[in-house]
């Protein structure tokens, strides 16, 4: 099988070497390939010779290869076009993430700047009730202009045109600057306590609607209303409004450790009677000069999220769920799913069933708005006198641009759907019984009660 002895069988080394070195012409090359397609021996010779030649190839030590660009440079050059939109996309994503992950501003700031929907004071007369018709109509206040804003420059001319305070507003907590206050954004931090409650009403079973109108709780330390109301929320009892005379520092210390301020300032009359005005002007911390007041405090409504939660999650003696509830001071009324009414005088700690004096099942219970609270005639007159005295001094203070003007702005007007005995400057008409609670039955009958225990059909 020696190729030298059988030269006709296989191509010689000269041809195979020329084939390996690609030195053959195309016809010769095709013939060699055709032979190797069927000859394993020549294929092996060729592959071995090629392998030996590759092993013999000297390393290219003397040839210095050109510096090749690095992988990063090659990748950048290759994906340069795609890097531009990718970088833009990454930057956009970073901005979006930063916006999303940025801590939200305190709710108090939003509450201070959010304008409160103004309510015309003519509403009570537009929808008179039996009680309103018997009482002198309250002086209708001019409807607020939507163009009015709570900027200091706009507040100045408004204060010059302050109208005399209607006696009807005294009992509702409106001071002499009430017209201006209606046009201002509601500063929840220092708005007269309870003003927002007037707007919101006390219908606890209409929680969402009432709370939506209430501004966020303030966080300023000069909110005396919070200080007075927080103990009532935490303890379930309404504290006397003596804390209104506390200094901010004292109040700050009194509320130390309470992370969540009370959302509802209940005792508006205490502040309104004292007629607190901001003493400081400019950027100084707001301090309230609270004058001692001899106004007899009227019962204030217990409201807010804590009370709503208490009423909603009250453990009724029937063991059923609460479908409707109302609160007034410490008095809570709750209707369970069976239509029974329960009464509590200690803010939901103890409940007692109210004997049904109506036909059918109770389906809802409502508390009256704040306007129905009344002052004694003497207290109301004294309050008005103090308001008329302090108001000019306060107006002089407020005439100057003051960044804290909004803090001392009076509350918005009371709600339009005032029902119950009309409140006048002289007090409550004694001929009209005080109606505090309403009860609606499944027969669409409305029953009213002053104390929540004795009911009569309306």
């Amino acid at each position: 099988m020696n190729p030298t002895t059988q030269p006709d069988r296989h191509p010689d080394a000269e041809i195979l070497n020329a084939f390996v070195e690609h030195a053959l012409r195309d016809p010769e090359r095709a013939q060699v390939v055709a032979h190797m397609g069927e000859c394993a021996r020549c294929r092996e010779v060729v592959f071995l010779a090629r392998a030996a030649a590759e092993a013999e190839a000297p390393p290219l030590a003397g040839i210095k290869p050109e510096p090749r660009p690095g992988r990063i440079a090659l990748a950048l050059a290759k994906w340069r076009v795609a890097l531009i939109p990718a970088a833009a996309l990454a930057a956009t994503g970073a901005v979006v993430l930063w916006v999303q992950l940025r801590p939200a501003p305190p709710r108090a700031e939003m509450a201070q700047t959010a304008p409160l929907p103004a309510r015309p004071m003519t509403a009570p007369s537009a929808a008179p009730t039996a009680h309103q018709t018997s009482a002198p109509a309250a002086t209708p206040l001019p409807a607020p202009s939507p163009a009015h804003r709570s900027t200091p420059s706009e507040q100045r001319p408004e204060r010059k045109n302050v109208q005399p305070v209607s006696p009807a507003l005294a009992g509702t907590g409106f001071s002499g600057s009430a017209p201006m206050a209606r046009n201002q954004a509601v500063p929840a931090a220092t708005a007269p306590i309870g003003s927002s409650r007037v707007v919101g009403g006390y219908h606890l079973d209409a929680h969402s609607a009432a709370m939506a109108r209430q501004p966020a709780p303030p966080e300023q330390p000069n909110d005396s209303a919070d200080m007075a109301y927080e103990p009532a929320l935490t303890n379930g009892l309404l504290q006397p409004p003596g804390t209104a005379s506390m200094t901010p520092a004292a109040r700050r210390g009194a509320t130390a450790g309470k992370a969540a301020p009370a959302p509802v300032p209940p005792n508006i009359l205490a502040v309104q009677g004292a007629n607190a005005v901001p003493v400081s002007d400019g950027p100084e911390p707001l301090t309230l000069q609270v004058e001692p007041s001899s106004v007899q405090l009227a019962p204030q409504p217990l409201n807010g999220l804590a009370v709503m939660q208490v009423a909603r999650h009250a453990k009724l003696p029937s063991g059923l769920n609460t479908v409707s509830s109302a609160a007034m001071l410490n008095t809570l009324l709750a209707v369970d799913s069976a239509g029974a009414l329960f009464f509590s005088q200690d803010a939901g700690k103890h409940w007692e069933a109210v004997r049904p004096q109506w036909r059918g099942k109770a389906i809802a219970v409502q508390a009256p708005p704040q306007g129905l609270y009344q002052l004694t005639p003497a207290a109301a007159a004294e309050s008005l006198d103090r308001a008329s005295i302090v108001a000019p001094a306060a107006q002089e203070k407020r005439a100057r641009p003051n960044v804290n003007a909004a803090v001392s702005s009076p509350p918005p007007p009371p709600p339009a759907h005032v029902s119950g005995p009309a409140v006048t400057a002289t007090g409550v008409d004694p001929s009209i019984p005080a109606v505090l609670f309403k009860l609606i039955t499944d027969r669409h009958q409305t029953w009213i009660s002053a104390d929540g225990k004795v009911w009569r059909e309306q």
Partner: protein
Amino acid sequence: MPAELALPDLAPHARCEIAPAVLDELWHSCEAEACGLTRPEFEQILVRIGMGQNFALATGPAAEAAGAQQAAFFGTLRMADLVLARACAAANERAWERFIALYRQPLLRAGMAITGNESLGRELADGLYAELYGLTDREGERRCPLESYAGRGSLIGWLRTTLAQRHVDRHRRTHREQPLEEANDRPAPLADAAKEPDATALPLLSGAAEDALQSQGPEEKFLLASYYLDGRKLHEIAAVLGVHEATVSRKLKRVTAAVRKQIVRGLERRGLSRGAAEDALAIDPRDLTAADRSSGTHEAHDHLRLKELLQTSQANPFKEQAGPIKTK
């Protein structure tokens, strides 16, 4: 002048003369003087080379080749290696010294690279070196393999190829000399009835595969044989063919698909359904080879043997295939 160069048969070719300009140029470029050759000896070597290939002229006698034709012919050859080889074949001492200085160590390394073993490689290289030196006689004449070198490739490449031929021939001559114990120790093929090829489909598959493979071109056959039978890698095949590795891969894929399609068509022409033809392609040729080995005879002609199909024993001699190509 060495006796080998003054052979009587050179007398008729002596009338062919090399152009003086060509002779002078080649004399300097081939460093003939370093090989211990005289100018008449160098001219005689050139005349024999040119007359042996007729100066690459299609027609006409070599003696009528002009100087330009001679220069073009010599320009296609590795004249320096060729002159050295011929000088060594003529037993020129200085030529052998130059040859040893230039190719002794490369020849040794090539032997080791081909055999993959230092001792075997050294043995192989020494054997060739002795043969090149003309220690073998045939019919009373000293024969030197270097005389077969025609200068179409490099001398070292020729030496490597010659070494590879020696190595392959010796391996093919000796690999069958195995003890019987080793042959009997081969594990028997696993008797798996589920994989037993269908006896009726095997002859049909054999015929269809033979037809499909025979219909392929020379290069396709070389690709199939190198890749599937020899187990060569793509880069090795690409290096031999002088093409890119991806080209080989692409051609192989195309050829494989074509062969498969032709085999399926051949089976369908032989009466098998499409599904049966597809099933017949699932037969593993390695199982068939093992079954053939287990029989220990060459009677299992019905079994499909792709290797035999690709390597037909009745291959035409390369002389008939090559046609005008001169082989030795």
